[in-house]
């Protein structure tokens, strides 16, 4: 069994062993914050001792002495919103699952990160695996779940190794699988590897997949918090959501709530790719103007590149043009301007990027990843892709543009799940902000092309 004394002993011993390794300065941009990534590059991810030496599992210890409702209250105070894309308040999600009556409940960590260009979850798992295990433990205590699953995408072999080791170590130390800190709470974690379908990141498809079915979304309601895995109340949380939970419990909800944009408190890890000087991942407080992110964090445009637009959350996202870069990050703040923050991936485009072609390739992604269950997405993605291809090849007509828009709105209204509902986002955003690029490609009778 794990106890405070045991944790302290490990901490002391490890601190002696590592010397001043933990004090080494990691070069950061002055705007970056390291809360979620506080251990990244600092500790050896394969060492549970080093995690403990950095006060790891103290959040779980504190939670184990709290009432369930108090843990949830603390989460609500923090204002944490899920980082998987939808921004649902985490405390409220836990509350629902807590209130649901059942003999068995589950926690699932969604590590299926599948949006092209996004890799914040991978960084967290690779550099600090115990933070998410601890997050799951606390979630389990809060709702009364004794079993957790990590659903990891198959394309992350290194994460698999790191997580497997972390889970094994946690079992050996008695953090998993044994009564925790003199309570009778025991928690188990099982690692499941996804089969490579993007749709399995959608929480109900993910649940189907764990149950051994074909990964296809379920009808909602019922929501997973009342009827999830094997019909039991289930909390599905994203990696980035769970990794900060231990610190919220340790430092209190108020600490977290003070960071960043009050409607989306805390930090967001952004992965920035495309035509900037310093692409990479950055943990930043929310509420930062996008201009600041691009210029001061990512170092501005790469040499010889002229800024055209920035695209949030890839194949389901939207464009922001130069005159919109004063906008600040945050789920609601961006949504008000027609852009989904999603999981926080940014792709920076320059004048050499063609919007129609980009929309086409994103639609191809959605088409390939559609599970095929509902008509709008199964058939709609194909037709929109064909229309974009036609326009790109110079054979499009005005009627095609109208149809493109019509089909896009139709999918948003009528597709079954988030994939189909957001698949037309880039197209609609492109039509809204770069309509001329579409129009210029239409078949021009006058020129006799």
């Amino acid at each position, binding site marked *: 069994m794990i106890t405070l004394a045991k944790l302290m002993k490990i901490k002391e011993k490890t601190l002696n062993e590592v010397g001043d390794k933990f004090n080494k300065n990691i070069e950061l941009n002055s705007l970056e914050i390291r809360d979620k990534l506080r251990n990244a590059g600092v500790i050896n991810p394969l060492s549970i001792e080093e995690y403990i030496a950095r006060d790891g599992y103290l959040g779980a210890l504190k939670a184990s002495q709290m009432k369930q409702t108090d843990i949830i209250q603390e989460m609500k105070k923090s204002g944490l919103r899920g980082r998987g894309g939808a921004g649902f308040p985490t405390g409220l999600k836990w509350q629902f699952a807590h209130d649901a009556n059942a003999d068995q409940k589950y926690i699932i960590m969604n590590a299926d990160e599948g949006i092209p260009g996004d890799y914040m979850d991978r960084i967290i798992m690779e550099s600090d695996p115990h933070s998410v295990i601890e997050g799951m433990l606390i979630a389990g205590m809060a709702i009364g779940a004794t079993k957790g699953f990590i659903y990891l995408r198959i394309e992350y072999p290194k994460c698999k190794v790191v997580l497997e080791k972390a889970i094994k170590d946690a079992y050996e130390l008695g953090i998993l699988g044994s009564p925790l800190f003199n309570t009778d709470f025991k928690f188990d974690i099982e690692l499941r590897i996804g089969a490579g379908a993007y749709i399995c990141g959608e929480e109900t498809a993910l649940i189907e997949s764990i149950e051994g079915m074909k990964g296809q979304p379920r009808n909602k309601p019922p929501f997973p918090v009342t009827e999830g895995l094997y019909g039991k109340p289930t909390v599905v949380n994203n990696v980035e959501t769970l990794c900060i939970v231990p610190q919220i419990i340790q430092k209190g909800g108020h600490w977290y709530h003070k960071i960043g944009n009050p409607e989306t408190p805390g930090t967001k890890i952004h992965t920035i790719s495309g035509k900037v000087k310093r692409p990479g991942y950055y943990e930043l407080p929310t509420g930062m103007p996008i201009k600041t992110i691009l210029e001061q964090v990512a170092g501005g445009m790469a040499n010889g590149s002229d800024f055209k637009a920035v695209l949030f959350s890839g194949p389901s996202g939207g464009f922001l043009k130069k005159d919109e870069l004063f906008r600040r990050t945050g789920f609601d703040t961006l949504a008000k301007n027609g852009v989904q923050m999603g999981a926080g991936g940014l792709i920076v485009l320059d004048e050499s990027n063609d919007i129609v072609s980009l929309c086409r390739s994103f639609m191809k992604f959605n088409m390939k990843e559609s599970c095929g269950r*509902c*008509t709008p997405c*199964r058939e709609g*993605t194909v037709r929109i892709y*064909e229309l974009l291809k036609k326009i790109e090849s110079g054979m499009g007509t005005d009627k095609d543009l109208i149809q493109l828009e019509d089909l896009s709105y139709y999918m948003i209204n009528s597709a079954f799940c988030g994939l189909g509902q957001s698949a037309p986002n880039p197209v609609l955003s492109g039509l809204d902000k770069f309509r001329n690029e579409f129009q210029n490609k239409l078949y021009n009778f006058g020129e006799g092309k």
Partner: protein
Amino acid sequence: MSDFVKMTINDIELKARKGQTVLEVAEENGIYIPRLCYLKGINNEGDCRVCVVDVDGQNGLKSSCKLEVYEGMKVNTGNEKVKSSVKNSLELLAANHSFECWACSREHNCEFLRLLRKNNVQNPLAEKQEHGRKERVIRDSSVSLVLDSGKCLLCGRCVSACHTYTGLDILSINKRGSDSIVESIDPISIDNSGCVYCGKCIQACPVGALTEKDGIMKVQEALNDPKKFVVIQPAPSVRVALAEEFGYPVGTNVEGKMYRAFDELGFDDIGDVNWSADLTIIEEGYEFIDRLQNGGVFPMFTSCSPGWIRYIEGYEAEYLPSLSSAKSPHMMQGAMTKQYYAPKMNIKPEDVFVVSVMPCIAKKFEIERPEMQSHGHRDVDAVITTRELARMIKYNEINFRDLEELKPKGQLSQFTGAANIFGATGGVMEAALRTVVEVLEGKSFDEVEYKMVRGTEEIKEATLNVHGIDVNVAVVHGVRAIKEFFEILKSGEKQYHFVEFMGCIGGCVNGGGQPITLPETYEKNDFIELRSKALYDEDKDMALRKSHKNRAVMVTYEEFLEKPNSHRAHEMLHTHYKNREYLKESK
């Protein structure tokens, strides 16, 4: 708490029961919501998105077939948003559909075509068909069933029907996205997938993506061949279902018009499987009596439903010795037509072409079994379903409703009431009892109705004291019930003597080859009940109601077969079975 909620649909204030869906409530209140993948009691997945409605305060449109009502809910079923979404869904489906309506078996009752017309769909996407079109795959290696992905709308109704009716889950939607395709367990061959050919998937299909393997062509060829003496023989249950194809109320018996239609279609002679149903009772009845008196294998199972035969061979082969060795009635009829009836008229067996009209697609498989022949001649040459018969009548522009009734005169078309009821669950058992009891007791009884084996309960049981012996009988119909019955049987709780099995719920009246009805008609009528009633009514009106009183059958024994279960009878009227449990393993 109240069990009701107040809500509005299209601004009309309504009271609805908690737990109801919007679709149900709308329907109860006479508000029509179009739908495609929804099939009451079978499929309720909300995938096709044709039944979408707009709900106040909710993002996006919702499938009304899945959507539960709640207090204060405000629903709109026909605003612009909804209408354009429905139209878009249908356009998209249409753009991927192989329209071959003139050659399609569902030309007259295609749900999709009706939806397209009703919603004024223009198919503007058709011009782009060459690109976004999915590959068309036609699986027609089976002798009973054809799957055509070109017409499939991926509604999933067949998959659910297979699951609901059989629990065998032979069909599923495989692959993903626009590659999605309905396939059987062995994608290449349904025959090897453990399918029992109940045909419920065909009847669940809104279009012609799932059909029986065509038999019309072969029949038409034979009719066109002057050398062939083409004989047609309908199964008992055909006459009480055929009418539906011509707009009659469910449960109308059109026996006389059906015979006339055969004549108009140009068949050279008309037999009736009802005749051989009586013959079957004699053969099976005496087999039962023989087992009873000489210590044979019990329980004895009936063998007339080929779907059931597929099941026992594929899943419970250890019980094969229990099966009666009697061929199914139409196979007997075919054998007797060629070996006995035709020679009597100086026609050579090889010149005879026997066509069975069956309520069943498993019969198409049955006639291909190698052992179904006598003296080197196939017992039956072609099987068409009730649906195919209707199609032939329509193709030939015969005005069915105006036909005058006909009563055929041939020996092999005469029957008793016992044969009529073969088409309903419990009918074979009742017919057998009418004969077996009299033979064992050695006297004639006035009371012939064994009501305890009638009705739609899935497993019916009765005990009769026959000549001092308590005989336990049971009647089982539908694959799910058959599965359940084998569990009872294996538990050894009770010893059975005689069990009637039918692959389809309700028996042949509800067979997989029977007419397909649009869902709204189907929901409003109890098809099994109405069609069965028509059979029992005909039985009631018959002067003769016991198989052993059928003179036309008894003469056959005198002239040809000698006696029940004679050597010759065994040669022509009995068969053997094969362990096909590899079907089970392939699952």
